[in-house]
Structure formats: C-alpha cells, structure tokens
C-alpha cells in the first residue's frame, strides 16, 4: 500500500516490454516482406556490405540481405522459442503439480526421474534427436524442450508444496472446491510469475542452444534463417564485419529483455 511510485514504475516497464514484444511479433508476422528482399537470395559479389539504402542492415557473407534474414529468422526463432517453451513448461508444470499434490511414492518416482534426466547429459538427447532427423528444426526443439522441462518441474514442485501446505488450500477443500479451482485460484497465481521468468530465460536458452548446436555442426538446413543458426554462421566473419554477428544477438537480447520486462522483472527461477 506504500508502494505507489514503485508500482507505476513497474507498470511502465511492463508496458515497455509489451510494446516491444508486440513490435517483435508484428515484425515476425510481416516477415521479410517488410524489406522487400528474399532472405535466401544471394549475391556473392556483394557479400558483407555495410548498411545502405538498398540493404538496410547490410548483407551477410553470401550477399544476402541481413534485414530480410533477421525478419524471417524472427518468425522461426520466436515461433520455435514459444513452442519449445510450451512443450517444456506444460509437462514440467503438470508433473510438478502431480508430484507435490499426490506426494508419497508418486513424488519420489517423479523426482528420481527428473534427477535422472538432469544427470543424463541433455546434449546427448538433443544430438541424438537431431541425428534421427538431420537438419529438421522440430527435432532440435523437441530435444531442447526435453532437457528444459526439468527446470519447470523442480520449480513447480517446490513452490506447490509450499502453497499446498497453506491453510488457504485446506479451507478451499473444506469449502468443497474441486482440484481445478484450487489449481486455478491458488497454485497458478502463486507459481505463475516465477514460471514466466523461467520461461523468459528458457526462450533465450532455446535460441542460443540452436546456436550452440550449430557450433557442433548440428543445425538447421540452409538457407533457413534462424537467429541461433545465424549467430553460428556469421561467427567466422566476426573480425571482418562484427556488425553482422551483433545483429542476431541484439535481436535475441531485445526479445529476452522484452519478455522479462513484460513478465515483471523478477529473475529468480
């Protein structure tokens, strides 16, 4: 009740974040049409040019328009970041709630399972999925979300245990409210902000993971533009044209920042 100024600052940040996210979504939807260039069209003799009126953000190492590639990458990266976040978060949250709600053996089994998954090098999983279907993006993201769900599980389980021990939940149960209502009114509002923060970081992790996989030569098929794979692709030219590799990094930075701002700033997973 004493934090009026603090709250308005927080609201301001949230609005900034939402506006940024909206702009990113718009850019992703409109895609390369915005700049009227084909993201795959090469012009080998015009490689690595600086920004010009023709190429707003310059051209990459194969003479492709950077702006067009970034926009086309935004579509894929954002979509897939969302997808992997959702596919990681849903099972993570559901299992987390299940484990803490049922407790006992169920809890122990799920925890042991989560621990075993964490102990299993996630890279193994991702690389193998990628190897099963070489060059396809869905296998990469499946693999990534398979390794990310544990984080949601651990957080949800830990928090939900605390919330469930609350007299408030007991009261609701006594009042005859069903599990659905309890999840909706007690659990989700409590764990929501934390989960959103994890998700914001998770989205960044998904994109940089694609970059990292590209680095060990497991990646998306050319000429697909994706921020992560663009980072890998442009790395060899970092010394000659540093502004090239900075662009996808900056895009990702803005996205993550926007996510954090719109989620409300907390960072603690």
């Amino acid at each position, binding site marked *: *009740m*004493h*934090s*009026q*100024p*603090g709250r308005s600052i927080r609201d301001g940040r949230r609005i900034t974040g939402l506006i940024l996210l909206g702009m990113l979504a718009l850019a992703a939807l409109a895609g390369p049409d915005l700049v009227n260039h084909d993201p795959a069209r090469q012009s080998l003799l015009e490689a690595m040019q600086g920004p010009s009126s023709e190429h707003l953000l310059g051209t990459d190492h194969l003479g492709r328009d950077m702006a067009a590639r970034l926009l086309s990458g935004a579509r894929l990266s954002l979509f897939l970041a969302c997808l992997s976040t959702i596919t990681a978060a849903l099972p993570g949250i559901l299992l987390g709630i299940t484990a803490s709600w049922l407790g006992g053996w169920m809890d122990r089994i799920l925890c042991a399972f989560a621990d075993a998954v964490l102990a299993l090098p996630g890279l193994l999983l991702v690389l193998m999925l990628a190897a099963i279907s070489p060059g396809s993006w869905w296998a990469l993201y499946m693999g990534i979300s398979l390794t990310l769900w544990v984080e949601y599980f651990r957080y949800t389980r830990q928090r939900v245990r605390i919330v469930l021990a*609350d*007299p*408030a939940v*007991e*009261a*609701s149960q*006594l*009042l*005859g*409210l*069903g599990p659905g*209502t309890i999840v909706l*009114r*007690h659990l989700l*509002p*409590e764990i929501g902000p934390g989960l959103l923060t994890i998700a914001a970081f998770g989205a960044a992790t998904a994109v940089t993971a694609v970059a990292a996989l590209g680095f060990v030569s497991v990646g998306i098929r050319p000429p697909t533009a994706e921020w992560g794979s663009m980072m890998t692709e442009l790395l060899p030219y970092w010394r000659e044209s540093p502004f090239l590799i900075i662009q996808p990094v900056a895009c990702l930075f803005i996205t993550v920042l926007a996510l954090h701002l719109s989620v409300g700033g907390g960072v603690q997973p």
Partner: protein
Amino acid sequence: MKAPGRVVISVQALCIHAGKDILLGPIEFHVREGGTLVIIGETGAGKSLAVQAILGTLHGSLLAEGQITVNGQRHDLLAPSTRANFWGKELATLPQEPWRALDPLMQSHRQVCETHRFVSCHSQHAAVVATNNAFGSLGLNGAEQHLPGTLSGGMAQRVAFAAATAGGAPILLADEPTKGLDTKRHATVVSLLSQVPDSGGALVVITHDISVARSLGGDVLILKDGCMIEQGPTHAVLDYPKTTYTKDLANAQPACWKPAKPCQSGDWVLKADSIRIKRGGRVLVDNFSLRLHAGERIAISGPSGGGKTTLLDTLAGLLRPANGEIQRAEHLSSTDIQKLYQDPPAAFPARVNLSCSLRDVARIHGVDSAQVACLLSRLGINSALLDRRPDEVSGGELQRISIARALTVRPRILLADEPTSRLDPITQRDTMKLLADIASDENIAILLVTHDIAMAKAWANRCIALSSPEEPLPPGGWGNRLDKAY
C-alpha cells in the same frame, strides 16, 4: 508519572505521512528512568509505525516528522540513518514475533552471545559467561544449542529478550510482546518486561491487550485511527476512561462479557470417543471424548503447543486419529463442517481478490449472489472491500468475510481455531458476538479453540481444558483430558 528520575526517552510531535495522508500522529510522550509506557490501539492504528519511526526503520516511502530525544541526544526524525548508532546500546527492541526475529540457522546461545561479544564489546570468554548467566536467569538452561525453529514460542521470546537486552540498553521497546502466547505465558512475559523498569530502565510496550497494560502499570497512551486520544497513568485511564473509545476498550475484555447460557441439548452432530492423536511419534491428545450438539458452543482451551489445532483438524476429518473413533451425524455432508482460521489472510488465496474467492464458493454450492450480498451486509461488510486482495483489508474485516464465506456453504458445524487472537479487543468482542449470534440463529454448532480461558468461559456453553504438554508426565500418560462442563 510515578517514577521520579530523568527522562530517558521523549517523543515530540511525531507524525508519519504516506504522501499526503497522515497515518499517525501527532503523538507525544516521555518516559523516565524506571518508567513504563504502554501504547494501546486497535489493529491498523499505526502502533508499529511509531516503533519503526523511533527506531528509524520506517519503509522508505513513509515520512516521519517530529523529534525524538534519547538519553539527552536529540534526533530529528527526518534523518533516521544516524539512529543505528544507539541500537542495542541505548535502545533495545523486543520484536513482535521472536521466532521470526531469530536467525533460523544459528543456535540460540550464539545469537545472545554475539550481542555480548560485539555490542557490549566483551571478550569471547566474558561474553560466554554473560550469556550463560542470562540463560540461567531466564530459565533457558538446556536450550543453548537449540535452533530457533525448535524453540517453543515462550522460549523464543526469552531468547530474543536476552539477545535484545545484552547490549545493555536502558530503553526497551516491545512491539506486541504477547501476540500468539497463551494466558499463562502472558504473566511470564510481563514479569520479564517489568525487569526493565525495575532495574532503572525505561520500557515502551505496544499492545492491544489491556490485561498486559494493567499488569505492567506505568502510563498508558491510547491510539485510535492514528491519533492519540488519551494518555495518563494506566489505572487512572482504564478505570475512569474519559472517551467512549477507551471505555469500550476497557469493557471489551472477555471478563466483562455477558456469560453464555448453557444450551438445550439437541441431537449430536459430531461425536468423538476416546481418541488419541499422535504427531511425529509424540502423543498430543489421549483419551479425548466429545459430543457436540446442534447449536451448541463449546470452547477448548489450553496452552499453546498443546495440540489444540491438531485436535481440531482431527475433528474436521483432515487428520486421522491414532486410536478411537470420530463420528459425524449421518445427515452431514462433507462440506457441513467448516473451519475458521487464526490468521485470516492465510486462509484466502493470496493473489485473487475476495469477491472472486466468494464467487467460487457460491457457484459450487448453487448460492446466488443476492444471498451472499445479504449475508455480507448482515456481517457488516461493505461490498466495496471485496474488490481488494486479502492482504489489503484489515484482520477483523477479513475474519468476518471468512465467516461469510463459511456460511455460504450452510454448514452445521463451525470449527474456529483462535479466530480472534490477532484482533484487538473491540474487534474480538464484536466478532465473537457475531459468531455466537449466528450459532443460535442458524442452529450451527461451534467448536472454538482458544488459549484465552477468560474468553472460553465467557463465550461458550461448555469449556474443555487441555493440559500443557510441558507439565511433567503424569503416571497414566496424558490422561487429564477432562470433559468438564461449567
């Protein structure tokens, strides 16, 4: 001002602002060596703000004005930072809930010892000796290596007292020192606190408990809505109140309530036959029997930590008794037993507004909103309050809303776990009266758990006293679960 001597702490024109609103003040008081001042007020009257202003620990968004003089040193309240220097050495504080004020990871002995060591600047050896003495004189022997989490409320209170006073400060500020303690412990705390004026220090106590004020004596200051409405020697003010509020306050004590009439026995709704309750391998309640009748009000009283809450949960069907049997009347459905909680904010989903919580319950039980509104107005709740979240309404209001929520279900039995222990006397009286009225109007049986024997006697048709687990074990185990009717 019965105690002569110089003024050690004096507060002048203390005002606390939040933006343009005045939350507290102006108030003014002086305490001399050997003097005691008790500040009494309803919850939310800004009593704790006064302590924080004096200490200089107010939240950054609040602004304090006025002057405070400690031991002749004058401080402008606008500049709180300098006051850290007299913490511990000039001015000690006893916190509201000592088990939260102690470092959960450090043994109690070390927490006291470090004050001796670093604040009084004793050598390590001297500090240990001083701590041992303090533990001895406070009856804390054996608790030296305990962590705060394993201390009982009373022990934690004494450890915190030892830690707070080890710096040798002549002034002690105590904020709600009896909150959550049973009647028996009140006496212990009062005697602990009165050591301060007896040894020539000055004591400032903030409480809503009139009995504490009466036992401490000294002066009293009455706050209402942040304003000082009366001040003077305790007995004079409380025995001959000048304002209606003070009069109300003095009369709100359970001892002054109209005793309840015994209830005509109807059909029983809940029956317990010689049940035994264990928790963590320890027998908390043994051989307990009870028959609760429709419309009856029964109070179970006993010291804190005696298994009262566990008993209530067992009766509510949330826990299973180790032995014995609990029966509900056959016509009772699963939601016919409802519970009221000690800490009302903890009984509501914290991040959802109140109207939403109420709507959920009404929807499940097919109660239309008009009935709920009717119920709320009967309980005297402004419907505008419902747009707020649980932590944004006062404890008394929230407890009434929780009663309304429970009544929406049309229960036959209401189990109330210390529902008023965090409320000030007037609110407590009003709430308890409301409960009593509802019980008779709706023919609901109410089982009240309380540590306040006076209230139990005054309010209930029947009282059951549980004995203290700290008392030596009688040969037959915890046998004296008397089902004693008054």
